[in-house]
């Protein structure tokens, strides 16, 4: 039995559909990441799961029980969950009092509180500041306090809404470390919303892609990233190359996709001839060479560099091969190969790197 389950969940605001037909199952001990662009409905879904709002239609089950039963039932369920909001929210009180409030409200004894809060303070590294007013903290510190405050109540489900949005990279790393620590120490079931895909990939065992209020794909992170099931998911998970074409040859699982201009992309796919498809290639799977090389890659196209942008340790190269290709190479490679505008290059990628999507 899943710990949290939603069935045909719909949520409307002022006539607008925010969430449509959400069917989600999260098992005990899972770490589930909900990824999607801003405004997709991630916060709303988390709020519904935490029973802060009621759905327009559909059902929510917690540990097998229907949350719609009564507000008393919901109150009990809420006490077994904890929610950390996107914006770090701390009460105008000391750090200790902030973290302790959930325990106080549950009537935990003072000594017990002191013990548990002390332990958590250690974990977030703020023991020395426990009497300081929480309002004086930086964003990152406040978020750590907020997470500690949620975790100290030992919830069965921890809901995190974009916990590292608005934070600097160092704070992001600290928080991710904290979350991982929580997962290891308490084995809490975690449902987190994030628009940072690599973060989702790093922390989660399973990912759900929420776009425009619908969960378009859910599953193993690698699978979602490498084999998006729709164009929208593909675009969101960073597949920069989505090339439309028609299958013109299909033999032993290998297909040739005619993308126009007499160019064929070879890929592994079960689709038959005549199927209208899109060929998806992740930019990091494309290799660039100055001249035609003998490589085992089945796809090789020559083209002219029309754009080269440095992204820190990586470089994003845009090439016109008669169709647009985007490649992601290390900056070192870019420098060594002198990849700059108007240079002629060869872009190669394996057939196994191509993921074929049925169009529409």
């Amino acid at each position, binding site marked *: 039995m899943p710990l949290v389950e939603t069935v045909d969940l719909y949520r409307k605001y002022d006539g607008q559909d925010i969430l449509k037909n959400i069917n989600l199952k999260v098992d005990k001990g899972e770490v589930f990441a909900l990824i999607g662009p801003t405004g997709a409905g991630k916060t709303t879904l988390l709020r519904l799961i935490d029973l802060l709002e009621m759905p327009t239609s559909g059902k929510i089950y917690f540990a097998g029980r229907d949350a719609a039963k009564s507000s008393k039932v919901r109150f009990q369920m809420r006490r077994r969950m*904890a929610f950390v909001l996107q914006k770090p929210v701390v009460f105008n009180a000391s750090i200790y009092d902030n973290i302790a409030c959930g325990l106080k*409200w549950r009537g935990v004894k003072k000594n017990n509180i002191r013990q548990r809060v002390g332990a958590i303070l250690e974990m977030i590294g703020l023991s020395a500041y426990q009497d300081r007013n929480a309002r004086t903290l930086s964003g990152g510190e406040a978020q750590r306090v907020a997470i500690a405050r949620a975790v100290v109540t030992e919830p069965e489900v921890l809901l995190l809404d974009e916990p590292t949005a608005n934070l600097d990279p160092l704070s992001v790393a600290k928080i991710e470390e904290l979350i991982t620590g929580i997962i290891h120490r308490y084995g809490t079931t975690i449902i987190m919303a994030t628009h940072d895909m690599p973060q989702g990939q790093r922390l989660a065992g399973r990912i759900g892609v929420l776009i425009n209020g619908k969960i378009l794909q859910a599953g193993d992170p690698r699978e979602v990233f490498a084999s998006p099931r729709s164009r929208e998911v593909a675009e969101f998970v960073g597949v920069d190359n989505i090339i439309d074409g028609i299958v013109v040859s299909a033999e032993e699982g290998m297909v040739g996709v005619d993308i126009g201009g007499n160019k064929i992309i070879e890929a592994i796919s079960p689709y038959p001839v005549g199927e209208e498809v899109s060929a998806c290639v992740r930019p990091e799977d494309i290799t660039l060479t100055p001249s035609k090389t003998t490589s085992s890659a089945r796809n090789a196209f020559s083209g002219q560099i029309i754009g080269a942008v440095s992204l820190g340790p990586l470089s994003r190269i845009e090439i016109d091969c008669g169709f647009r290709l985007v490649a992601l190479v290390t900056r070192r490679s870019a420098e060594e190969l002198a990849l700059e505008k108007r240079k002629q290059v060869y872009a190669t990628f394996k057939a196994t790197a191509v993921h074929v999507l049925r169009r529409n």
Partner: protein
Amino acid sequence: MTELWEGLVTAVKLIISLDPEVMEIAGRSLAISATSSAIAALICLPLGAVISFNNFPGKRTLINIVQTLFSLPTVAVGLFVFVLFSSAGPVGGLGIIFTPTVMVIGQVILISPIMLGLTISALSGVDKAITDTAISLGASGFQMAVTVLREARFAVLAGLIMGFGRAISEVGLSMMVGGNIRGFTRTITTAISLETSKGDLELSLALGIILIALALVINLALNRIQQR
């Protein structure tokens, strides 16, 4: 000008010599207004929380009415309370007309709209995220209300101070329902009214200065707490 100066001199003399009648009147003003403020606070803080955190049809209208009642004229409230508690009135059986008790009741009615309205506005000023956080952390309705009241304590206290200020400075109600009885229901404000009409401006001014001083001291004390 000389009158003002003489008033100030008389005020100082009365205070320093701890003139018994003046002390008694001042003590009574303070006692009645402090009690009515405390009772009004005990009613309005929880009521304000209940109204603030719940949605119900007519909530907007209710809040508008409360705000309109801010400017209740004291004589009007006084008249209303008098007619209620007079022996010939509906609640006359209690026999509390012309006593400090009915003055407290009247003042509670007078200042409750202010306290209620300002409490509601203070609570609405608190970020919704705080309410959500508290609820998600498992706070019961009551626990959540206390948390939000604490977050808004600065603004809430301001409302309490305003209420007290209105109570201690009103004349019309105290006069009507208290009767300005010497030794029993005379307050600083009703005494000023009486002394002025009798032509003893010096004493009136002195009482006025004492009243202002009293209000200042109380305000200062409450402000200190507010700052913490």
